[in-house]
């Protein structure tokens, strides 16, 4: 399929321009053909090196064509033809009338190489144990976790020169490959090769009217997702039984969207209104899975039905010459009308989640002087949730202020501050619960994504122009979230970010650019180790239950990240020889410390996602003639990864059966390439 498609695309690139006679006056044609080789000495070393590129050595080729004849235009592009990251595009049209494009794009995502499994049938919907034997990992089958994405489609637009327009976009996305799926039971964890065989079809039709004063657009989207494997059947390696995991189910998504915008209103105002309605559905049956239907289930059929309604409006104005204002309002409603699954014992009942959110606010930008601007604003947001009792409602009040100065020739400066106050309401039904019930703990848990907090953020940004050909930028951001009322959960997190970059044309034969950055992130959290109802332990962290096995503990995580990059272009011979060098080094260092009220001390974690990555590239491009370039390049990459969770990796630790997923981060790789490019 891939080869046939590639052939058709390449053929169309060559055939398309041949229909044009280029003897006319207003005609232009330019393009290039590039051919070469790519040599990687580390094709299977680590998926992380060239994570999104075809790592295999081989031929590389690129093609580019742009042409026009009077008001007709056309173009074609091919990148990495025949490789797993190839891209093709053709486009054309008649200016002020219509245009079209068609594309084919492949993206390879290398997740993890050198994995192993004792299952046969990897890639299919059913996994059977052995041979080989799960107890002898050295004999397991080898495979790679890789997902290949192919996307192709076409975009059409009509009446481009008239106030009216019509657009049609159609595309298909196919994903194929394997990714790790964690599952298991109380017997142990099992890491399975999950088959990925997805197809998504998307159609978008839009039409409307545009003028300088107003525009409106009505659009519809229809998207279907289908998975060749609705579930994964796997033989349990711990006891003789077939188990089943649900995989992403087929679904249908439709959306209607209307947008209006008016410009050139009084006070130089512009107003927009946007409304949309979307519906996401699916349906499947417990009988489809082939698993035993659980007892006490109210229905074996599930019909998913989620509706979202959105409305947004904004008005910008300039009531005074130096004042720019904006007011806005957003409304979002998610209504979940899916089937409610109930059990006679209530244990696995579903609690369908939906919510309504609205946001309103204003901001203003005022020119204090021609070189000083002051801006500020306020936003209120309310989220009302159903079936999330830990955060049934939260209200945000956000204030911000920013000042910018451009009065100096050699510098611009900007400073900003924002503060967010979030108030969250809980709505627990604790009727009949005692501290011996596990659910009693719920009232003490506050989750960082929704809980009450105060957030402070401070930002400074400077641009310096000390020399006529030197630009220097510096930016610093401080952000702190203080989760005010948390008993269990994250209590505080703080981030510092400092970035510097520059661009300097030192001389006609030397252009330099570079960047450096440092980030520090810290977080604190409180936790309660317990087993409610077991050996006198209770689910109340605020009182001592006297049980030695239940105790409070807290964790402090710190992460430091820094990076530096430098690039140099040396046009040694003008329009003839260009040398380019670039390199980046990044290092990340994390740690985790614990304090505990328990009987035993908890050990700190020093290797907490520590890594360093070095990447270097050098390239020489020599123009043999005006239309013929030769390029020789070299890439070097090195990565060292150290994390306690992967140190001393075992395939069968303590009864679990793993597959080496995401454990192959270390690499040292060399890539050489050359290309010959003919331009016309």
């Amino acid at each position, binding site marked *: 399929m891939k080869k046939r498609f590639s052939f058709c695309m390449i053929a169309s690139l060559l055939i398309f321009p041949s229909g044009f006679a280029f003897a006319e006056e207003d005609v232009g044609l330019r393009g290039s053909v590039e051919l070469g080789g790519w040599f990687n000495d580390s094709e299977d070393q680590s998926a992380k090196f060239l994570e999104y590129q075809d790592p295999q050595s081989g031929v590389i080729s690129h093609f580019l064509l742009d042409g026009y004849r009077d008001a007709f235009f056309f173009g074609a592009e091919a990148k990495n033809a025949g490789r797993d990251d190839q891209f093709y595009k053709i486009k054309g049209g008649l200016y002020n009338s219509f245009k079209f494009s068609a594309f084919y794009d492949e993206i390879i995502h290398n997740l993890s190489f050198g994995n192993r499994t004792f299952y046969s049938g990897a890639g299919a919907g059913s996994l059977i144990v052995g041979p080989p034997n799960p107890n002898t990992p050295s004999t397991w089958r080898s495979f790679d976790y890789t997902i290949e994405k192919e996307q192709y489609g076409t975009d059409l637009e009509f009446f481009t020169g008239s106030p009216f327009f019509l657009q049609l976009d159609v595309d298909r996305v196919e994903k194929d490959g394997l990714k790790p799926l964690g599952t298991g039971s109380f017997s142990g964890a099992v890491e399975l090769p999950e088959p990925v065989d997805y197809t998504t079809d998307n159609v978008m039709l839009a039409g409307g009217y545009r003028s300088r004063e107003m525009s409106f657009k009505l659009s519809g989207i229809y998207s279907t997702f289908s998975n060749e494997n609705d579930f994964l059947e796997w033989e349990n390696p711990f006891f003789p039984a077939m188990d089943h995991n649900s995989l992403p189910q087929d679904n249908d998504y439709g959306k209607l969207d209307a947008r209006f915008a008016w410009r050139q209103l009084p006070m130089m105002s512009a107003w927009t209104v946007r409304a949309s309605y979307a519906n996401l559905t699916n349906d499947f049956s417990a009988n489809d899975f082939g698993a035993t239907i659980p007892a006490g289930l109210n229905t074996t059929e599930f019909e998913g039905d989620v509706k979202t309604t959105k409305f947004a409006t904004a008005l910008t104005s300039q009531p005074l010459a130096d004042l720019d204002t904006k007011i806005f309002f957003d409304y979002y409603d998610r209504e979940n009308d899916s089937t409610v699954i109930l059990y006679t014992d209530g244990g696995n009942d579903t609690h369908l989640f939906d919510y309504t959110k609205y946001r309103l606010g204003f901001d203003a930008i005022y020119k204090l002087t021609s070189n000083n601007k002051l801006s500020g604003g306020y936003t209120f947001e309310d989220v009302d949730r159903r079936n999330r009792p830990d955060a049934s409602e939260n209200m945000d009040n956000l204030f911000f202020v920013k000042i910018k100065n451009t009065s100096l020739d050699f510098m611009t400066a900007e400073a900003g501050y924002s503060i967010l106050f979030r108030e969250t309401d809980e709505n627990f039904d604790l009727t009949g619960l005692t501290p011996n019930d596990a659910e009693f703990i719920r009232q003490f848990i506050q989750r960082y994504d929704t809980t009450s907090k105060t957030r402070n953020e401070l930002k400074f940004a400077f641009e310096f122009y000390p020399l006529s050909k030197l630009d220097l930028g510096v930016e610093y951001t401080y952000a702190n979230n203080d989760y005010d009322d948390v008993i269990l959960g994250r209590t505080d997190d703080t981030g510092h970010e400092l970035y510097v970059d520059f661009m300097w044309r030192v001389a006609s034969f030397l252009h330099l650019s570079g960047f450096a950055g440092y980030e520090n992130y810290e977080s604190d959290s409180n936790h309660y180790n317990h087993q409610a109802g077991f050996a006198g332990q209770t689910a109340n962290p605020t009182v001592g239950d006297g049980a030695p096995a239940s105790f409070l503990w807290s964790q402090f995580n710190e992460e430091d990240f820094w990076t530096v990059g430098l690039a140099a272009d040396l046009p040694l011979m003008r329009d003839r020889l260009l040398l380019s060098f670039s390199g980046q080094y990044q290092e990340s260092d994390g740690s985790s410390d614990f304090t505990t009220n328990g009987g035993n001390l908890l*050990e700190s974690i020093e290797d907490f996602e520590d890594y360093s990555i070095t990447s270097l590239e050098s390239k020489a491009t020599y123009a043999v003639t005006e239309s013929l370039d030769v390029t020789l390049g070299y890439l070097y990459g090195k990565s060292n990864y150290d994390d306690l969770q992967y140190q001393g990796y075992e395939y069968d630790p303590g009864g679990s059966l793993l597959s080496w997923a995401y454990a192959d981060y270390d690499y040292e790789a060399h890539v050489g390439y050359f290309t010959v490019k003919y331009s016309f």
Partner: protein
Amino acid sequence: MKRKCIFITMMPLYLIFLSLLLTGTAAADSHSGFIGAETCQECHEEQYASYAKSIHSRKAIKGPASQDACEACHGPGAMHVEKGGGRDVDIFSFDSDASASDKSSKCLECHQKTHDFDVWDMGKHARNEVSCDDCHDMHNNASQKPSQPEVCFDCHRGVRFDVSKRSHHPILEGKVSCSSCHSPHGSISRSMVKTDDPQELCYSCHADKRGPYIYEHPPVEENCMACHLPHGSRHAKLMAQKVPNICQDCHHWSRHPATPYDGESGFTGSGSSNRFFGRSCLNCHGAIHGGNTFENHALTR
């Protein structure tokens, strides 16, 4: 419900009607003081050469060449020539002295009616003095399209660092561009994302995650960015924090969710645990975005 349908049907018709009332007519341009591109070329040879190779020079399409060439953007040049030329001498220059809105308005005279500019006026770029020429090079022989992501990184420094971290979308690899997710020409959505909300944007590529699910994970349904950092992260899978910590910050249920996993919990430690080593929580809870087996709300199936 019926009222809601009527409202949804009538609202567009009403807005069309309103727009017709508000629509005005453009004033006729005066046409004096123009000297023609040949005169400009005499002094500005290099600029003219690049213009001549650009799409703006094409006479067959509506644009500068079908109007007043150089002067379509820079304004009539007669006075400029009369005074002997010079930067900003009776001519409009796209330099730092000109305001961003003045510069952009020159481009918008033609491009206001084209795709994506519906809400340029209320986008963050327009309101923060970003002009068209900050990103587009109008005097470029090759293409007037900005080279992404480099152009964006000039202002959005933090994103440059994020996309180079070990976990990232294929942005530097050229398979995802900034404009794949953001509308640089204006949007009223947060962070100028292309869709109404970030969830819809993520699901446009990750359709397998959109559900609906029997057993939902509420943060997934409300905000992908509760757990993921879209530009890049030092943690795998664009996670905002490391697993198991990000999970344990919310899950304090009885037994293992509330158990501390410390320096001894790895493969080689004295307290080795399959809740910590390898992919930690994900060793068992593989259906973290939502589960569809009928009997398992713990997202392990």
